C-alpha cells in the first residue's frame, strides 16, 4: 500500500447522481479505500449486485467493474446465482434499508442462514429516499415521513441483530460519522468468508433530515455521532433508552463453513457417483 489512494481508477467517468450531503459519498469512499488498502489495483475480481434505491447506485454503473443492477429487493438472489457459479469472485451487494430490510428481507435472512459467501453493505437512511421520503422498516418510532404524517407508529427493525441470529459470519454497524471504522469493517469483511453484513446508518438530508428538524447533512452526522453507543456501553442503558441510540461496532465474527464450501463438497461426492 505504497501508492496514494486515487478513487478515480475504480470509477467510470460518469457524474454521480447523489444529492449534496448524501451519505452515499461516504460509503463509496470507505468501500473503495478499503479495496485500495487491501491492495486491489482494480475491481476485476469483484462483482457488484444492487437493487433499486439511491444506495443501489453506489456501485452501478459508477464502479469500473461488473455490476448487476437488479429489481427492487432482488440483489441477493441474483448474487446467489453469481457466487455459486463463480465462487472465485468477490460478490458484494449494496442496497438501502428498503431494498434489503423491506422488500428483500426474506432473501437477506436466507442468505445469512445459508452463509452465502457475499458481503452485503446496507446503507440505512431510515427512509425511502428515492421515492420522496416514505416510511421504511427502519424508521424510528414517531418520526414523521410522507406516509406517516402524524409520526411513525411502528418499531424499526434491527437488521444487524437479525443477521446474527440468522447465521451470518460477520455483522457490524457503523454510521457515516465513523468513516474510518466503517472502512476498517469493510476491510475485515472482505477478508472473511461466508455471509458478511455491514450496516451503515446514513443521512438523507433531502427526504428525511429536513422533515425531522435537521437543517443540514452535517447536523445529521453530528446526531449520529452523539447518539451512537458501542455494544459495551449499550449494556449500561435500559431497553427504552436504547430505542433512541444507534448501537455501533462488531456484533459477530465467526467462521462457520460457507454455502459454497458446503455445496461444492456435495458436488464432489455426487460426481464420484456420476462417474459410475
Amino acid at each position, binding site marked *: 500500500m505504497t501508492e496514494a489512494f486515487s478513487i478515480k481508477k475504480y470509477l467510470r467517468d460518469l457524474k454521480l447522481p447523489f444529492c449534496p450531503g448524501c451519505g452515499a459519498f461516504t460509503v463509496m469512499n470507505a468501500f473503495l479505500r478499503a479495496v485500495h488498502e487491501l491492495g486491489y489495483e482494480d475491481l476485476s475480481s469483484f462483482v457488484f449486485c444492487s437493487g433499486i434505491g439511491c444506495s443501489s447506485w453506489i456501485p452501478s454503473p459508477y464502479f469500473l467493474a461488473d455490476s448487476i443492477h437488479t429489481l427492487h429487493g432482488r440483489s441477493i438472489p441474483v448474487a446467489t446465482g453469481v457466487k455459486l457459479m463463480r465462487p472465485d469472485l468477490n460478490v458484494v451487494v449494496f442496497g438501502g434499508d428498503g431494498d434489503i430490510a423491506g422488500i428483500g428481507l426474506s432473501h437477506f435472512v436466507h442468505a445469512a442462514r445459508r452463509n452465502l459467501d457475499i458481503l452485503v453493505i446496507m446503507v440505512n437512511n431510515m427512509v425511502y429516499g428515492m421515492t420522496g421520503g416514505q416510511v421504511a422498516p427502519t424508521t424510528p418510532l414517531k418520526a414523521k415521513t410522507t406516509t406517516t404524517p402524524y409520526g411513525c407508529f411502528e418499531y424499526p427493525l434491527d437488521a444487524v441483530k437479525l443477521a446474527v441470529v440468522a447465521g451470518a459470519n460477520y455483522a457490524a454497524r457503523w454510521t457515516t460519522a465513523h468513516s474510518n471504522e466503517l472502512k476498517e469493517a469493510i476491510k475485515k469483511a472482505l477478508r472473511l468468508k461466508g455471509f458478511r453484513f455491514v450496516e451503515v446508518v446514513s443521512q438523507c438530508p433531502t427526504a428525511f433530515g429536513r422533515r425531522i428538524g435537521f437543517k443540514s447533512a452535517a447536523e445529521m452526522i453530528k446526531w449520529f455521532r452523539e447518539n451512537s453507543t458501542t455494544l459495551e456501553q449499550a449494556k449500561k442503558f435500559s431497553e427504552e433508552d436504547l430505542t433512541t441510540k444507534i448501537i455501533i461496532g462488531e456484533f459477530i465474527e465467526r467462521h462457520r463453513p460457507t454455502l459454497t464450501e458446503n*455445496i461444492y463438497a*456435495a458436488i464432489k461426492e455426487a*460426481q464420484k457417483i456420476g462417474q459410475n
Partner: protein
Amino acid sequence: MGIVKSGVYFWQGNEACAEAAIVVGCRFFAGYPITPASEIAEHLAWRLPQVGGIAIQMEDEIASIGAVIGASWAGAKAMTATSGPGFSLMQESIGYAFMTETPCVIVNVQRAGPSTGQATKCAQGDVMQSRWGTHGDYSAIVLSPNSVQEMFTLTIRAFNLAEKYRTPVVLLSDEVVAHMREKVVVPPIETLEMVNRKKPKPGDKAFFGLEEVPPMPAVGEGFNVAVTGSTHDEYGIRFTADPLVHRRLVERLNGKIQNHADEIVDVECCNIEGCDVGIVAFGCTSRAVYDVVEEAKANGITVGYVRLKTLWPFPDEIVRKLAEAAGKIIVPEMNLRQVYYEVKRAAGDVAKVVPFNKIGGGELITPEELLKKILEVVRGRD
C-alpha cells in the same frame, strides 16, 4: 451417471425435461417446490451435481428466478421450473430478463387456477399470462410440448432459443404431459443441435445494442459489464428520460423476436391444404386430435389441424392457411378461451372460429367429445 446416453427410455415428462436440460448444457437450477413441477427440481437436485452442476432450492420463486438470472450472467445455462402461482411471482423477473437480455428457461407446468385453484389438476389457463404476464412492451417465446418425447426435445429447443436470442424462454407444459410416462428416444447426443450464446471479442464494449442480438459477456471476464433493468444504451448505461434511447432499446428487444417469428414458430400440421373442418390445439388437449382424425374419416369428414408447438410468437400465417382451407375451425382448450381469440384474430375473417372449452378437475377433452363437436360443426348445428 453423467449425461444420459443415446437410447430408448421410459420417462415421466418432468424427468425428460430435467435430463434434456443436462444434455443441452444447463448447469444451474434454482427452484421452489410446487405441484405439479416439483419432480423437475427433485430430479435435477439428484442429477446436476453428478455432472458438476448446481441445484438449489431457494426461499421462493422470486429468489429462484433471481438466482437463475445471476447464474446466467456468470456464464451458465440456467433454468427454473414452477406452476401457476410461482409463475405469477416470477413475472417481474421475466421482464427483467427480457430487458437485460438474459438467456434462461422457465418451465411452467400448468395446473388449474386462478390462485391456488386445483393444485394437482391439469389446465391450460396460462397461455395469455405466458405472453403478457410482465409489465411493459415485450415479446415472449413460449413452447408447448404435448408428449414426454417433446418434454425432452422442446426443453433443448427452449435453451437453444434462449441462447440464440438472449431472452427468457418459457416451456409451457401441463400437468398431464409433465406427469405421464412414455417412451422417449434420445438420439446420439452429437446429432442434437446445441446453441451457445455469442461471446464478445476482447475490446468489445457494446453488450446491449448495435447488433440485433449483441454478444454477451459473463461477469469475471474483464469486460466491466453493467447490467440494468432500467432503460439503457448500447453500453449498459442508464438513460431514464431519453425517449430515443428507450424506443431504440425496446423496439430492438421486441424486434429480435418478432422479426424472426418464422424461425421460431414450430407447428405440426395435417390436411391443411384440404379439409372439411380445422382444429387448432396444443399441449395435452392436442393428443385427442390424433384419434379424432381417424374417427372423423370413418364418418366421411376430413379433419385438418395445426398443433402449436410454439404458442408465442403465434403462427398467424399457418393458422390462416388452415382457416382458408377449412372454413370452420374448432379451438379445444382447457381454459375459458385463450388461444381461441388468437385464432379469431389471425383468421376470423376467413373462417368461422368455434371455441370448445372445458375446465375443472383436470378432466381432459376426450376424443369422443371432440368428435361430437366436429360432427355438430360440420353438420351446421354449431
